[in-house]
């Protein structure tokens, strides 16, 4: 970790470090003749919760996967903490991967391992902590995401959808990352569960000083926990800003999204002023 620049969230937040946590410039991603992202640029500032919205199939998940290096980009640059991810050496790349945690849309828990072992996978791979401390940390992470200790010895197939998301979040947090990528964290949860999950993310974000990059469809999450929102359409970010900024944007998709029937119901009256 020491080879990649200072990583102390305290000083970074205190000094208001101007380098964004993630900086995406003119990225083009396509599959075959189909261009998904066409010259997309985006900044995610340190310590903020960035909500990323867009219609289905516009490439929200593709951008996340491109940042994480799971999908190759055709051109453009992607930087994390000011380092260009394309030119990092293997060692630096691994150090970088320790600094982010990812919650996949369907959890992507290892089905052959118990919940506790799932959370310990990153610790086991990167560190040489004693088994006792790893067990305690895994239990602590479970407790932080609001699961009971008896879930620890279950296998993913024995868990409900909401529990899978929580365990996946606990695993994403295993190494205390600085950036948390969430791909539709509340999809498939009931409204109460989704609200709980939002609150959980907000609490963890404040406590741990995380930067959160969240792809979501959930208006509730956007209103309640996102500091800024970026809207994706036609392969580009068409607008960024707070919910209030979004309401003022005059783009057909953004208008119908934030002024639709569902959005009006979500709107707390106080926010309008």
């Amino acid at each position, binding site marked *: 970790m020491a080879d990649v620049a200072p990583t102390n969230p305290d000083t970074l937040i205190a000094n208001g470090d101007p380098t964004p946590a993630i900086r995406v410039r003119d990225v083009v991603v396509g599959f075959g003749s189909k261009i998904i992202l066409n010259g997309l640029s985006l900044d995610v500032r340190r310590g903020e919760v960035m909500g990323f919205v867009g219609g289905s199939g516009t490439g929200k998940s593709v951008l996340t996967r491109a940042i994480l290096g799971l999908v190759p980009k055709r051109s453009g640059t992607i930087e994390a903490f000011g380092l260009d991810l394309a030119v990092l050496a293997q060692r630096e790349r691994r150090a970088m991967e320790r600094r982010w945690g990812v919650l996949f849309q369907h959890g992507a828990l290892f089905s052959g391992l118990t919940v506790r072992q799932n959370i310990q996978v990153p610790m086991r791979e990167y560190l040489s*902590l004693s088994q006792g401390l790893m067990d305690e*940390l895994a239990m*602590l992470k479970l407790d932080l995401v609001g699961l009971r*200790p008896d879930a620890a010895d279950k296998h993913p197939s024995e868990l409900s959808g909401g529990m899978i998301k929580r365990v996946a979040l606990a695993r994403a947090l295993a190494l205390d990352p600085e950036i948390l990528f969430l791909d539709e964290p509340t999809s498939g949860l009931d409204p109460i569960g989704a609200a709980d999950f939002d609150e959980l993310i907000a609490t963890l974000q404040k406590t741990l000083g995380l930067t959160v990059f969240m792809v979501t469809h959930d208006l509730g999450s956007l209103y309640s926990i996102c500091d800024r929102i970026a809207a994706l359409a036609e392969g580009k970010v068409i607008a960024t800003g707070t919910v209030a900024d979004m309401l003022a944007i005059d783009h057909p998709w953004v208008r119908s999204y934030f002024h639709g029937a569902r959005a009006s119901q979500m709107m707390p009256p106080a926010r309008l002023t």
Partner: protein
Amino acid sequence: MKAEPEVTSDRAGDALLVRLSGPWTIGGDRALEDAAAEIERAGERFGSAIIDLSDVTALDTAGAWVIDRARARLAGRGVAVDVRWANPRHQTLLEQAGWRPFEREKPARRGGVIGLLAGVGAGAVAVLRDFVRGVAFLGEVMTALARCARNPARLRPTSVVFHVEQFGFRAAPIIVLINFLVGCIVAQQGVFQLSRFGAATFVVDLIGILVLRELAVLLTSIMVAGRSGSAITAEVGSMKMREEIDALRVMGLDPVEVLILPRIIALVISLPLLTFLADMAAIFGGLLVTWGYGGLSPEIFMARLQSAISLNTFLVGLIKAPFMALVIGMIAAIEGLKTEGSAESLGRQVTASVVKAIFMVILIDGLFAMFFAAIDY
């Protein structure tokens, strides 16, 4: 140089002042654990201690956990510990990720003789259950077949043809190749061993009877169990994992009829055809080796073969093939349907499917040998 968590302690009157400095994060790895142990070691000789966090440069949940755990353990030994001068963010972390007991009952484990006996018992019951399940499943397959026979529109010819291509046509090259090689090996050994008794021409009888009655069908069945049985188990198993089988059921479709019957029918069609190819390949291999290595001309080989074998020698092998196919298909389907949620379980079922199918194929071959001997066929 990588900064590490550090602990320095001083006496301050009756109390001990423990100063923590450096980054207390999970990146510290073992050093983090050692530093935490150091706090406990320093503290336990005193009546009270103050932990000073003002020089800590970074703290995360792991760091907060080990510090607070040290505090709790010292408190448990009667040392009053005060954690002070943490900055507000660290204070929140200490509160959120502070020490807490986790009670978790360990699963009861039976050891020794009782555990061994319990294991043996469970194994025996599992074998019995497997047998009952097999018979029940055979019943299900037969009822599905009967339904299709009464109403042929329910049969899925496209699926059957597709699987005949997968299990039969695409398996033909490898089956022909291995049987050709085995025919060659049997012939070589036959010529080599029998020539010592001056009975080299009997090699043709050896090849004809051994290959047609036993070897070709056995090798083909084993190959098909490994190649197609495993594929069926993996397909059915992953469909089970993704609730696709349940989806079929709630649509009023019988998974046995939709998925398993076409595959079993395809196997029952393919395996005899493959066995025939295997017979021919092995005899051809035998012919080439007896000619090249044993010096027996093809004309003599053919004449000898005609007198050595009769139609029933050939049929004995072929009759067994559909039964082998049925057993392979059924075991594959049963094991596939037993799959649970995890990737590990799928792997286990595929292994079990292939192992059980090969075992049963050999067992059935033995039973057939006894049966044909008894009826003198």
